[in-house]
């Protein structure tokens, strides 16, 4: 189930400039990507176009999933194919962790059916266990730590049982332990269930540790894509972030993964 961008350009409602332009790229079925770039480079727009939640005008081109244009797919069906995880939901109403995760089953429910099936309950329980939320599952999300509430939002996306997971800054501002837990879960989904993942975040050293592929956006256009260690280079970093940032690529001495240094 690949995601295909062909010549895709998009401008937000009220915006004068295209947020992303002439995007041509195929995310192969089950692939695992980090989408990187400076602030305002179009990363979130790219992710949202995959989830079908953009408001504005498509200049030209298409985004297709398994050959079908995303905008023409029924929204509930799309929610069974792509799950979206934002960075922090800002939940204002009381809801427990388990109730929130259970919402991930909504796209599979008939309008008049109330409550969850036994199968749903089993699925939710295994997600709760996978995320290590057993102890806190019946607490209100507003009473959980920021990290745990981020795990709950991820849990809801997992409950959607999609072929693609899309994470927009979902691990930013989490502590190192929770970041590790998120990446372990993503790794497991990618390896065992062949789930494709599109990840946006600014901590590239963290991403380099876990994510095999890297796509660079700059001012709304793709400038480079491929295996993480091949794409990341001194020239690219100074092109994107400016020479003054003084960034260079080296290696993590423990595992040989690429690592960015400030000089």
């Amino acid at each position, binding site marked *: 189930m690949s995601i295909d961008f062909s010549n895709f350009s998009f401008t937000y409602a009220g915006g004068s400039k295209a947020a992303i332009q002439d995007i041509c790229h195929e995310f192969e079925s089950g692939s695992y990507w980090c989408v990187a770039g400076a602030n305002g480079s179009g990363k979130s727009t790219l992710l949202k176009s995959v989830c079908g939640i953009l408001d504005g005008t498509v200049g030209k081109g298409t985004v297709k999933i398994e050959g079908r244009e995303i905008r023409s797919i029924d929204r509930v069906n*799309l*929610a069974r194919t792509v799950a979206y995880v934002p960075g922090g939901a800002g939940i204002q109403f009381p809801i427990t962790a388990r*109730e929130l995760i259970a919402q991930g089953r909504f*796209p599979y429910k008939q309008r008049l059916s109330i409550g969850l099936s036994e199968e749903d309950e089993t699925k939710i329980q295994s997600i709760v266990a996978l995320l290590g939320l057993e102890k806190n599952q019946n607490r209100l999300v507003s009473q959980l730590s920021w990290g745990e509430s981020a795990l709950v939002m991820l849990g*809801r996306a997992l409950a959607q049982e999609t072929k693609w997971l899309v994470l927009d800054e979902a691990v930013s501002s989490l502590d190192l332990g929770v970041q590790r837990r998120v990446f372990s879960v993503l790794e497991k989904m990618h390896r065992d269930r062949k789930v494709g993942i599109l990840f946006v975040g600014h901590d590239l050293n963290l991403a380099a540790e876990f994510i095999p592929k890297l796509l660079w956006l700059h001012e709304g256009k793709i400038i480079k894509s491929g295996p993480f260690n091949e794409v990341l280079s001194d020239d690219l970093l100074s092109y994107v972030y400016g020479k003054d940032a003084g960034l260079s690529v080296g290696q993590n001495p423990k595992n040989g993964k690429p690592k960015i240094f400030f000089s």
Partner: protein
Amino acid sequence: MANSAKIIGVLLLALLAFVVAVLVGPAEMTSEIFWQLRLPRAIGVASVGAGLAVAGVLVQSSFGNPLADPFTVGIASAAALGAVVGAVVFRGSFLGFGPGAMAFVFALGFSFVMTAWMRRGIRSAADILLVGVVCGFFFTACATLILSLSEPHALAHSLSWLMGSATYIELPWALGVAAITTVVTLVAWLQWRAMDLVTVNELTARSMGVDVKKLRLLLYVCVAVIVAISVGVAGVIGFVGLVVPHALRRLGVRSTVTLIPAAFFSGAALVLSADALARTIIAPTEVPVGVILAIIGAPVFLWLARRSL
């Protein structure tokens, strides 16, 4: 306690309040009083309470904002202005329609303008609420201006509308109001999953298949119908729409699937009891039911919420 038990609990409470409301009153009970005054009034008041509490859930859920109520979206203020225009400008009757009918027309008219505006583009929840609040101020100011220029007799008549006071209603009308409120509640209830998702996060709700714009339009119309009817029957009653959903959530009724029926019955119970008290506390003078609700209800709510505030 399971949620179904809570719903049955508030249903029993509503029935009890209904019986009490029918039985108590300053005058002695006769068959005439029962059929022409007490029963229609109890049905009307119960429908208003049920409808307003449900409207509160709908507004809060569809805008993902716990502070929203039928006043924050401007509809209730539009209805109040309609009642004042009906009472003062048209001296209680315009082509045979009283202030209640004018309140209905104003509320629906305003919601028509608002939904037309909402349909024309992409509006954020904050924008819709802001426009609602600003329009609400405008309507209230217009009503105050009209009142300040009016004669004492008309002023007294309008005040009873503005503070909420169930007036004379005939049985067929009361039954009609109950039927419409129930149907609108059912229509809105069918959207419970979408509302659950929007209360968490609008963007993720959309990613999970909710057409937020359509949902808001539908629920806005539901709220407008409920508020228009309730102001027409009982004047402007605040408090219920804001507080009933909150109180229920704090009692553990969280999902919209149970919140809507629970609000329906507890809103009815609350306004029925307040109305019974309003009629009897300093009989034969009637205290506006809105006043009773806020004066007793506000401290009770704060006490209920004391642990989580």
